Structures are given as structure tokens and as C-alpha cells.
């Protein structure tokens, strides 16, 4: 599935973290002299540096992967170092998956041992499945067993990831309990078990404020250390995150690189922040909030979409007109109520804001 070589990564749409940042990881591993927990590619300090960024002794600059409170990442890394499972909680778009992918990449050099949680995730996805042709032909045997990502992680002593844990039905969730507490996965059909090697642990992400989630049972909950990822605290932080990610994405998508004007990014972030928090940045005006979650991830996709528009159809410079349609599409999820919210926002806030005249006009034009 994963061909870890950088060459294989060049053609893919979105390389894995360990592919994209292979250079940084290699340098870190080379210069890392601190003790590494069993099964870890890097020491906890190096993992922290990889996520938060910094400069290595030889001058290599490590780009920050997560912009936010340092203590959160420290708690997360310390949790993994004590072979505890880590639960990343937060509203959509707060970089839960992003953090979990990079943690897995830094700790085990492999972020692909992934169970994607959905309402239909079966127990086999968490434990193991069978190659039924072989099962019928030869009866239960080691060869007929198809190990799931968790089982593979246990055998290798690597970090497994469970995305959207709360979307998984409760009875399936409970299959994790034994794995997390006993660190073994029994296979009663073969009368054997898989015992996890050192270094095995689980990073789960979950969304606690959404519809259609299955609460975690307290038995499962207490097997996790919980870290709540917040939305970016300040406008500057968020602009920073968006421009950094947009630059990377633009490179990955090989857009004819128009420069994403910081001014426009700031504008998009401001709009989404204001609508999300229900009041303007100066705190003077109350606003209605739309139904969708307007997270940093949305801001990134709006700006990237705008960049593509500007590159292919515009004059190569990111202009308000390139952003207006994407922004409107993000804000107006519910065609009736969100439309009112968006229009009201345009008329009461955007119109009179100094320097936002072009932007206002562009948004008005896209309104059907």
C-alpha cells in the first residue's frame, strides 16, 4: 500500500506526512541524541520539535506543523511516551487529523495504519478479517487471516490511528478496550493471540460537538488521555496557519503560483472568524452565526480555491472576485437561513469597512 520512497510520492495528489517531510524527519533522526522510547523513530523531544518547529543544531529549519499552545503537543507526546492511548478532541477543522498524522509519522515513521470511523465501521475493521476463499478451502489458519491496521500496528510496535472514533457504533468501539488495556488481540478461531510489541499505541480523533455521534463509554474513555485542540486563539495565528498551508498546497497542486496576498488571506480569515464567533473582531457588533462550522480548514480551502481561479482564469493575482464564490459556498450551507446570515453580514459589516469596498462588490455580484 505504502511505498515509502520519495519518488513514488511525487505523482500522488497528497503525499503522507512521512513522505512530504521525509527530509526533516531524516535530519531530526540523525541529530537526535536523546534516549528514544522502545519502538520510536525519534526521541520525544525531537517529536515535539518536529510538530512545533524550530532550528536544529546544524541549522536545518524545521517547519512548524502545528501552530498553537506548546503544552498541548507536550501533553500529547508525553502521553504516547507512556504507551497510553491519546484522544484528540475538538470541533471540526481544528487540525485533529493533521496532528494525529504527524505524530504517527514522527513516532513510527508511518501514518498509514488508519481506521476510518464511520457509522458503518464493522468490528473486522478494528480487529481482523478473513480471506473467505482460503477460509473455506483450508479452514481457519494464519494464512486466511487478514489483519486490520490495528493488528498490524501491534505486530510492528507502531502507532495506529482511529479517525472519528465517536462515529463508530458503540459496540464496535468496545472492541478497542481489550486492545488498549491488555495490549493483546485474541484470535479465538486460531486459539492464539497477537501481543503488541513495545511502541504500539493508538491516537484517536473525535468530535464531541456534532450530530450523530456515539458517546464513548467511560470504560473506553478512561483508557485515553484527552487533549482538546482549540480553535486558533488570535487572528494573526490563524492567518499564519492559512498562509502556510495554502503555500504548501499550492505547491503540491502545482498551481501556476500566483502569490496569495496576505491581505486577501487575512480578509477570508477575518470573515470566517467573525461569523464563527458571532461578533466582529473589534467586539462591537453582534452577528448571526451560520449553521456550518467555519474552521481554519475551511479558510484554507477557500483560499486554495481562489488561487486556482486566479491562476487559471484570472490575471494570476488573487483578487476578491476569486474568493467571493468560494467564501459564499462555505458560509451558505443551508440555502435559506445561512443566506440571510451572509447577506446581513455583507450589508452591516463588510459594506462599511474601510478598504473592503472591492470585496463587498465582488460578494454582491456572486449573490444570486
Amino acid at each position, binding site marked *: 500500500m505504502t511505498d515509502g520512497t520519495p519518488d513514488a510520492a511525487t505523482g500522488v495528489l497528497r503525499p503522507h506526512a512521512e513522505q512530504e517531510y521525509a527530509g526533516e524527519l531524516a535530519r531530526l533522526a540523525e541529530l537526535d541524541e536523546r534516549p528514544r522510547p522502545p519502538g520510536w523513530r525519534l526521541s*520525544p*523531544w525531537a517529536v*515535539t520539535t518536529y510538530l512545533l518547529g524550530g532550528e536544529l543544531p546544524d541549522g536545518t529549519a524545521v517547519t512548524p506543523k502545528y501552530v498553537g499552545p506548546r*503544552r498541548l503537543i*507536550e*501533553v500529547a*507526546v*508525553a*502521553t504516547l*511516551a*507512556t504507551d*497510553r492511548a491519546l*484522544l484528540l*478532541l475538538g470541533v471540526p477543522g481544528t487540525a485533529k487529523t493533521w496532528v494525529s498524522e504527524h505524530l504517527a509519522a514522527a513516532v513510527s515513521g508511518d501514518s498509514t495504519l488508519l481506521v476510518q470511523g464511520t457509522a458503518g465501521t464493522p468490528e473486522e475493521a478494528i480487529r481482523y478479517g478473513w480471506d473467505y476463499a482460503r477460509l473455506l478451502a483450508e479452514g481457519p489458519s494464519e494464512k486466511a487471516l487478514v489483519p486490520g491496521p490495528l493488528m498490524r500496528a501491534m505486530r510492528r510496535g507502531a502507532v495506529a490511528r482511529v479517525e472519528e472514533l465517536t462515529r463508530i457504533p458503540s459496540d464496535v468501539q468496545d472492541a478497542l478496550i481489550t486492545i488498549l488495556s491488555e495490549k493483546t488481540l485474541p484470535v479465538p478461531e486460531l486459539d492464539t493471540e497477537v501481543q503488541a510489541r513495545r511502541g504500539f499505541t493508538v491516537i484517536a480523533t473525535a468530535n464531541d460537538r456534532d450530530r450523530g455521534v456515539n458517546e464513548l463509554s*467511560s470504560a473506553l*474513555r*478512561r483508557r*485515553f*488521555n*484527552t*487533549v*482538546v485542540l482549540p480553535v486558533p486563539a488570535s487572528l494573526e495565528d490563524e492567518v499564519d496557519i492559512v498562509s502556510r498551508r495554502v503555500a504548501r498546497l499550492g505547491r503540491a497542486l502545482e498551481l501556476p503560483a500566483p502569490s496569495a496576498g496576505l491581505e486577501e488571506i487575512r480578509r477570508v480569515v477575518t470573515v470566517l472568524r467573525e461569523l464563527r464567533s458571532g461578533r466582529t473582531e473589534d467586539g462591537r457588533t453582534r452577528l448571526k452565526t451560520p449553521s456550518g462550522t467555519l474552521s481554519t480548514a475551511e479558510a484554507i480551502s477557500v483560499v486554495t480555491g481562489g488561487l486556482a481561479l486566479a491562476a487559471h482564469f484570472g490575471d494570476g493575482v488573487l483578487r476578491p472576485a476569486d474568493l467571493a464564490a468560494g467564501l459564499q459556498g462555505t458560509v451558505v450551507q443551508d440555502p435559506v437561513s445561512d443566506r440571510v446570515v451572509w447577506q446581513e453580514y455583507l450589508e452591516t459589516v463588510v459594506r462599511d469597512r474601510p478598504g473592503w469596498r472591492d470585496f463587498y462588490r465582488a460578494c454582491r455580484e456572486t449573490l444570486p
Partner: protein
Amino acid sequence: MTVEVFGIRHHGPGSARALRRALEAYRPDLVLIEGPPEADPLLHLAADPAMTPPVALLAYTLTAPQRAAFWPFASFTPEWTALRYAHAHRLPARFIDLPAACTLAAPPEAPGEQHEPETAKGASTKEPGGSDAGPSERARRASLGATDETTQTDGGAGNAAERSTPAERAAGGRQPGEEAGRPDEGLWERARRDPLGVLAEAAGHADAERWWDDVVELRGQEDVFGVVAEAMEVLREETERAGSEREEQREAWMRQAVRRAVREGFERIAVVCGAWHVPALRAKVPASRDAATLKGLPKTKVAMTWVPWTHGRLARESGYGAGVRSPGWYRHLFEAADRPVERWLTESARLLREEGLPVSSAHVIEAVRLAEALAALRGRPLAGLDELTEATRAVLCEGADLPLELIRRRMVVGEALGSVPDSTPMVPLQRDLLAQQKRLRLKPSAEPRQDAFDLRRPVDLERSRLLHRLRVLDVAWGSPAADASNRSQGTFKEVWVLAWHPEFDVRLIEAGVWGTTVHDAAAARIQAEAADARGLPELTVLAERALLAGLDEALPAVMSTLADRATADGDTVRLMEALPPLVRALRYGDVRGTPTGPLRTVVDGLVVRICLGLPRAAASLDDDAARTLLERVATVHETLALLDEPPHTARWLDALAALTDSPASHGLLEGRLTRLLHDAGRLPDLPARMSRAVSPGTPPARTAAWLEGLLADGALLLIHDAALLALLDSWLAALPAETFTAVLPLLRRTFATHTPPERRTLAARLHHLAAPAPPPPEDLDPARAAPAVATVLSFLPLRPGSPPPGPLTPREPPAEETP
């Protein structure tokens, strides 16, 4: 002969432990401690078993008690350890800082005042640390105290600060600035203000307190005093370009004190002082220079005593610059025998369990592991409070912040109120209060708690009076709880929220000018305030307070002033405002058994004046004025109903009736009064009046205002009186189109105040009105209905004068149907 100087971190538990060990090893024959020497005669009290920290030494000037300073001591304060050590080994102990007489003697209006705050500030800020770094906590004691803390606590209590001098405010206001740090100032300037912060920064820590935890508190085994002294020496050499005058004075005084002790022949002298002062005390300075520095210091007369203190006051959150962010954690570090991390997390788990959160021992185990892993990741020798907090959040609280806040409040700060022995010197007022607290079994505590008093029980009545009297003296130990149950249970029950704050002791000392007992002082204060009071409402409030506090002898004075002012006051509206509290007071008086004779006289006079003045007050009003007056009229109306004095009520209703009939009154007012009179059964001709009001001769706007007044509190009248509804309906239907548009908003305003069920019923009635009325139930048999009617009538108390129950007609809803 040897002199050993121990530089400690104020309120540092690690310092305290190290100091105890060091003292035991050194075996001094005299202990000198940084602190105001005026407290020396009080030091023996520290050994009293009834003395429980946190306590504070309080110094106040005799001329103006609000100029005060505190020296707090918690169980983990090194100075406290030194004191206890001295007492345990029967050694003499002395305080050697600059006397409070000098530090509190900032000249009130001298021209040098603008300079003085600077030096006072300098003394407080030159010490290491500022508000968040340990060794400086003593700093602010020199110049601030009650003053800066009261500025930042509840607004009503801030009077001490208001009266304090700019010197103190300047010094107090400095603290927040220190934490914020100023970007534009040079490194040396910052080093002078916060040397520990600079040292910590140099060591790669953002938070000076954490750094200190690292190098001192968590490495309790090492002998740190030499190292600290060295660090301070270097730092002082680097920063001391322009020493502050006040600091030089303090250090000169300390050196002189040490010299005196040497002269007296002590052999082994231990000096315990803030780390910052160590180099200065070790320095060889000629005695003559110190004597010159100390020459001609201004002095004032001060008194000192011990007062109970709280952990909340030690914590930074309270705004007091003492600057220990986590007194509960420090106490834990100091008192826990071993394994502080495990003990702390176990205690946290128990606390959460008490609150009903499912926290198991497995949680605690994982929390300990996480805390230790975090500490290792951060390169700290042992897990500190930061790591414990993170571990608690991630494991014990499962990511939630709310339970964490509980732990912060109950454990990290750990609210505790100290106590002082009875033999502590106190002002008479404090003694009186103490005696009353004992007698009424009302113990002060720092944690707010609710208490309900049944005023019919003598002891509860006395408690209530005591609290009310203290409130008169600005000692808000209790405040009435604002909950609904309070009201519904009648006037004999009072619910109070009790919380004792240390600054109350200062207020009591201040209040000493009014008298020697709580009762006398409160009475004197009320009388004095009554004499100064400007307006009637102020006086009535005073009267109410006097009654609540049971200050009978103050009442006549207040009442006579009140009567005088009421006579002179020509403004009826103000008189109307004054009436309700007085009537309330009258009723309290009944419950509390206070004589209310003089109060009744005043109330009687007020009612008469109001009734007489009402027509004049109601003449030619605009909309806003009418609305204001209406509110007052409604309050007076309710108040008089409460008073239940037939002559007054009759007089009032007469006045209202006269007003209703005068053609000049405002529509809103007239409508409202019509309704009040109708409800009081004084108006036989409501349909006629309504018909007049809605007839075409009246301008539609006035009609709408009239209706608003009439229907202000509910549409029941219209629902139950079909005739009125019909009148209204036909008026509305006959309005020309343009007038209708003009009147619509007014009508809408009226009907919008009614509840949805009322509006629904009204609509249903109107629907019936439009449709042909349902045929009257012809088959009604009066003879068969008679027993039912008689039964219902026996439930309903009928007023004399109401029409006798006639035969049931379809127009009158049958009694059975009325809700």
C-alpha cells in the same frame, strides 16, 4: 561570634524547609527576621496554639487607620518557620526591617510627595521578583497593603483605597504593569524591577516561578542559601546603577539591627531576609554611613496587631500583590511527608469523586505517569504544578476545563482562613464583634456560605441585626442572598451569604471612630449620615437600614430629619419615591419588634402630602413624564395596599378619582387610574367611561393611550366584559384608514404586553362577537342549578356592595367557568 544570613524566597515552601534544616544545623542564639520591629512585642503570640496561619501582621497609623500595611504569613512562609523555630528553642526573635512607622509615614501633602511614591515604589520594585517571583513578595509590604488590595476587590468595598494617598495607589497600581512587562524599557530597567524574571529568562524559562521551583523548591536536599546569595550578588552588581533611597534605608536599618545584636553579645546570630538583601547585609558598610542614611526619617504613630488572613489573599488572583499563585500547592509541598506528586493527584481524584465524577485509582496511576513523562520531556527534575495540572486535565478530567477549575479553586489556591488567639491586641470594636460572634455562634469563614435566619427566633434576630449593623459600618461580612425563595417565604425569613475577608479588620479599625461597640458605632454612623443626607430617598434608605439593624436610638434623629425634608420638599414625585421603603420598614418593624411610632407619623404625613400634591403633579404631562408618574403611582398604590390602612387607602382612591375626572390629565394616566379604581370597586360606570374615551370626539392617539393604561396589566378585563370588548371593537372598526395607521403602533404596544393565551382567548371572543352569538342555553333550569350556585358562592367571599347574585345570564359568564 558569627552572623549567618539566610536569603529566602518569601512564601517559598522549599526555602522554609531548607531554612528549618539550616537553622537546626547552625543552632543560633538569636533569630533576626525581616519585618517591622514594632511587631516584636507581638511575636510571642506566634507560639500560641490558637494562632493558625494564614495570618498577617497589620500595621496602621493611629491618625488614619485606613493607611495600613500587611505582612502575611502562611504555614509555609520561611519567616514563620523561623519564628516557630525560635519559639520552640526558646530563643529571642526580632524583626529588623525599617519600622512601619517610617514606611507608613509618607507625608500627606508635602511638596516632596511626588518624589516619595517613587522611592516607595522603588523599594517595592527593586526587590527580586515583582509579583510573580518569590523573593519580592515582601516588597509591596513596605508601601502597600490594604490599599492596593481593596482597589481591586469589590467596588463597594474600595473606600480605603479612595482615601489612600497617591503614593500607595501608585505603588499598588504598579503590580499589573510588572507582569505585563513593558516592551520599550531596557533590560536593566527590567532587571531592577524583576531580577528573578531576568535570571529565569537567562535560564530559558518563561515563568520565573517555575524556574524557582526548578532550582530551589523541588531540590529540597541541596543547601541553596550560598548559591542564592551568589546569584543575587552578581545580579545586584549588574543592576545597581542607581539604588533607591528607600531600599538603602531599609538595608541600613537591617545592618544597624545586626550591629546592635552583636554589641549585645549574642554569639550565633541567624538573619532571615529576602534573598535580594543578602549581599547588602553581608557587605562591609561603615556604621556611620548607615546612621547618616537613617537620619531624619519621617515617622508616624502606628499600631500593630495580628489579623486572620486567607489563602485567597495570598494568591495572585485576588489582586493582592503577595503573588503566590498557588498557596494550596505550596502548603501541600510543605506539609506532604513524601511523594508530593502522588499525594496531590490522589487528593485531586478524591475531590473529583466527592463531586460525583467517576475517577478511579487507574486514572491516578496514569496521571502520575503522564505528569512524570511531561516533566522529563520538559527537562525538569520533578513534576511541578504545571505538569500536574496538565495531567489532571488530560486524564482525571478527560479534557474538560470545568472540573479543573474546581481543583484550582479548592486545592491550588485552597481557601483557608487563619485565626488569631484572643489575647491579640484588638481595637474595642473588634473585641465587641468577637464577643458577639461567640455569643451568637456565628463563625467567620473565608468560603462563602448561605445561612437562613428565622427572625421569630431571638438568636436569629440578633444575628440578622448584627449583620445589618456591620453593613452600616461597611463591613459586608454578610450580604442578603438574592433568591426568590427569600421573598416567597414572608418577611420573617432572611437568607444571608456570609464570607469573611481580611480587610474587614481594617474597616473595623477605621470604624473605631464611631464608637466602641458595633451597636454604638452603627447608630452613630447612621445619625451622622442622616444629618448629611441631601435627598429624601437617601434618608428613607437610612431609616430602613436603622430599622433593620435595630438601632432604635438612631431612628428618632433620622425621622425628624426626614419629616423636615418631606415638608420642605415640594416635589410630589420624590415624596412618592420615599414612601415605599418607609412602609416596608414599618412592616419589618412589626416582624422585628422595633418600635415604629415615629416612623408611622412620618408615613401618615407623607400619604397626606402625596394625595394633596398628586393633581398638581399630574397636570400637563408629556408622554415620558406620564409614564414615570404612572410607575410611581403604581408603586404607591401597591405600597398602600400593603400598608392596609383604610383611611389612607380611601384618601388615595379619592385623589385618584379626582384625577380621573379632570379633563386635563394625560390619556395614559387616565386609563390606568380608571383601571385601578375599577379594580378597587370604586367605579360603577366603566362602560360609560370607555364609551366616552373611544368616542369620535377624543383624538385617536389619546384613545390609544387610554387603552394602554387601562389594559396595562392583562386583558382579563376585556375577556370577561363583552360590552367593553364590543365597544373597543366598534371603535376600531370605525376608525378612518389613515388614523388607523397612526394608532396601530400604540395599540400594538398595548396588546403585545399580553400573554399569548390571553391574546388567543381575546381573538376567540372577537370571533364570537362577529359571528352571531350562540343561542343562550334556553333549557337552563334555575331550580336545578340553584344548589350548585349556592355552593360556589359559599367559596367566593363576596364584598359587601357587590351586586347580589342574580339569575344566570349568558352575558355574565357563569361562576363555574371563571378561572
